[in-house]
């Protein structure tokens, strides 16, 4: 017969009282462990979310960086191709054509149309396509408006290169190609008949808006234009396309053309390739700026997320800091009352034990042994319940967190390790006074009253 056996027998006899004690301790321990688990889960989830977010942002930025890098490489490549393939375009003008006049009133000087044939039959290498043309700002009397008339015979093939697909087709005789502003104003459609300077033409093409002098230009066959303008066998310019040279390109072209056509001058024409390159440069600049914005927005997003998580953690911590002490106090009070009730229930029994020779410390031990058993049972149940509670409420499973991560910090491990000790101390403290009261009972009074 031992104190433990006595305590166990009494527990078996008064199961409800023991169960109430265990529930009370389990509640307190569950609150403590649950709060710690929840707070730890919050921390782990925050770390994980922020790491994931950081990784997402880094991936997005890396992708963006790659895109910008690729755009840069593409741009460089495109520039190289354009410069190599298209090169840039030049205008071959009569030497007497004034540049100021050219810019103010268009082409005013002329040169023989045979120049283009001379150039085409030469061994020229710095230009690829030749387009002779006449061009003049004229009145369209039938519609009482000014237009730029361009006569073109299409591309003149450079003989030593063999036949290539022409970049620009010739405008056939009797056909007219109309710029945007003109066909818009005159409501022209392809196939419409128009009269220009008493000659009838069929509209063969309508140009879309280009935002240049092309919008107020009409194109007809070179021969017909020469006839209208009284410039038979004369042209105003030869447009040389896709000039492909390296180094100081314009001087190379000028040198080569001057050798073939001494009475001409070469003027660099603004190249679409350059425009495209500029557009791409702008695009790259925009992508880089977008990349910077992406980085900034990523950092802001990360901060926002961290702030939100911190706020949630603080809310949980605040709640726990109020709830846990309250439940602990409530539990101590409950255990105290249960132990007191137990001491009262056992008055006669303790009186007898005292009468047959039990010392007061043995009576206290009987009570404290029971308290310890309540503490152990309640503590263990509380750990399981609390961990489950914190696990569920903290969303550990739903966030795909490995439970071992929760124990990486010492705080939770320590709490769980110390919880049974705390539970035993808690029940011990709560049971101490009732045990003392029981131990100090006067057996004579008990025996007399019974």
């Amino acid at each position, binding site marked *: 017969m031992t104190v433990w056996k006595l305590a166990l027998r009494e527990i078996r006899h008064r199961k409800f009282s023991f169960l109430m004690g265990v529930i009370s301790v389990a509640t307190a321990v569950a609150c403590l462990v649950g709060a710690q688990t929840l707070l730890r889960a919050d921390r782990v989830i925050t770390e994980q979310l922020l790491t994931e977010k950081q990784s997402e942002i880094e991936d997005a930025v890396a992708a963006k960086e790659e895109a910008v890098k690729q755009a840069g490489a593409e741009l460089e490549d495109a520039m190289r191709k354009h410069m190599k393939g298209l090169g840039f375009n030049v205008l071959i003008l009569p030497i007497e054509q004034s540049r100021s006049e050219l810019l103010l009133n268009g082409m005013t000087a002329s040169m023989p149309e045979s120049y283009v044939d001379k150039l085409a039959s030469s061994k020229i290498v710095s230009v690829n396509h030749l387009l002779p043309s006449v061009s003049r700002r004229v009145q369209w009397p039938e519609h009482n408006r000014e237009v730029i008339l361009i006569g073109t015979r299409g591309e003149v093939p450079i003989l030593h290169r063999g036949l290539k697909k022409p970049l620009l087709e010739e405008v056939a005789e009797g056909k007219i190609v109309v710029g945007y502003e003109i066909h818009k104003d005159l409501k022209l459609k392809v196939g419409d008949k128009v009269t220009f300077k008493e000659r009838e033409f069929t509209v063969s093409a309508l140009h879309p808006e280009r935002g240049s002098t092309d919008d107020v230009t009409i194109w007809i066959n070179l021969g017909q234009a020469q006839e209208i303008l009284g410039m038979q066998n004369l042209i105003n310019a030869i447009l040389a396309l896709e000039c492909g040279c390296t180094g100081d390109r314009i001087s190379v072209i000028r040198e080569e053309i001057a050798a073939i056509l001494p009475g001409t001058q070469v003027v660099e024409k603004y190249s679409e390739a350059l425009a495209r390159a500029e557009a791409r440069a702008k695009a790259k600049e925009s992508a880089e700026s977008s990349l910077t914005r992406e980085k900034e927005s990523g950092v802001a997003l990360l901060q926002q997320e961290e702030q939100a998580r911190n706020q949630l953690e603080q809310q949980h911590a605040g709640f726990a800091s109020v709830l846990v002490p309250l439940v602990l106090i409530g539990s101590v009070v409950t255990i105290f009352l249960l132990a007191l009730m137990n001491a009262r229930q056992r008055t006669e029994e303790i009186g007898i034990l*005292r009468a047959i020779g039990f010392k007061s410390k043995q009576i206290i031990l009987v009570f404290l042994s029971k308290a310890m058993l309540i503490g152990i049972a309640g503590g263990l149940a509380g750990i399981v319940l609390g961990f489950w509670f914190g696990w569920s409420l903290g969303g550990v499973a739903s966030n795909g967190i490995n439970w071992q991560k929760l124990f990486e910090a010492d705080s939770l491990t320590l709490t769980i390790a110390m919880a049974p000790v705390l539970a035993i101390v808690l029940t011990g403290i709560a049971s101490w006074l009732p045990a003392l009261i029981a131990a100090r009972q006067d057996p004579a009074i008990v025996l007399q009253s019974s």
Partner: protein
Amino acid sequence: MLLQLDSVSKTYKDAHSTVHAVEDVSLQISEGEFVAVQGPSGCGKSTLLLIAGGLLKPDAGTVKVDDQDPYSMTPDSRAEFRAQKIGFVFQQFHLVPYLSVLENIMAPGMAANCTSSEIRERALHLTERFGLADRRHHVPAKLSSGERQRAAMARALLNQPKLLLADEPTGNLDHENAETVLNDLSEFAANGGAVLLVTHDERAVAHAQRGIILQDGKIATASAVSGAE
């Protein structure tokens, strides 16, 4: 002398009255002596028994059990002294309800700091002796009154006390069971122990060697009982 009470008095006081439960009582009981105390209800019999048992300190007088004054000891020493020297048997049995018969019998062993095996051996022997062998694992609620009182007797004898104090041990028993208990008390005295029995039961008095009649807390008559062995 195993029990010696010299001029012992005990008074109970409350706001309304003062009761002299025991007044100037002197009593000696030697080894092997069986003494019965009789008297009407409220005459102080139970108080005298509690004083003799080291459970209730008298207001005046001295108490010696086996030449030692239990009231000069600390409460815990007195408890240990009780466990070793005195056995109690009560009318209400006062068995611990959640312990089996065997465990109830073994309980005083804990108080006397005996070894477990020794306690168990003695307890088993007592269950045999009191005819409780087949009831040793039963809780008191499952026993008859006679069995309960026999269990209480066995418990009182576990630590082999020198003095047995019995307060109306036959009060709740039928004739047969009462006779068994009284025979056991007589046997205890015959084996060298001292018995102080408080009772109303004339049959019980017949088993005693000496009878004392208590009246208003005082010894009215003290005489040898004719039926005593």
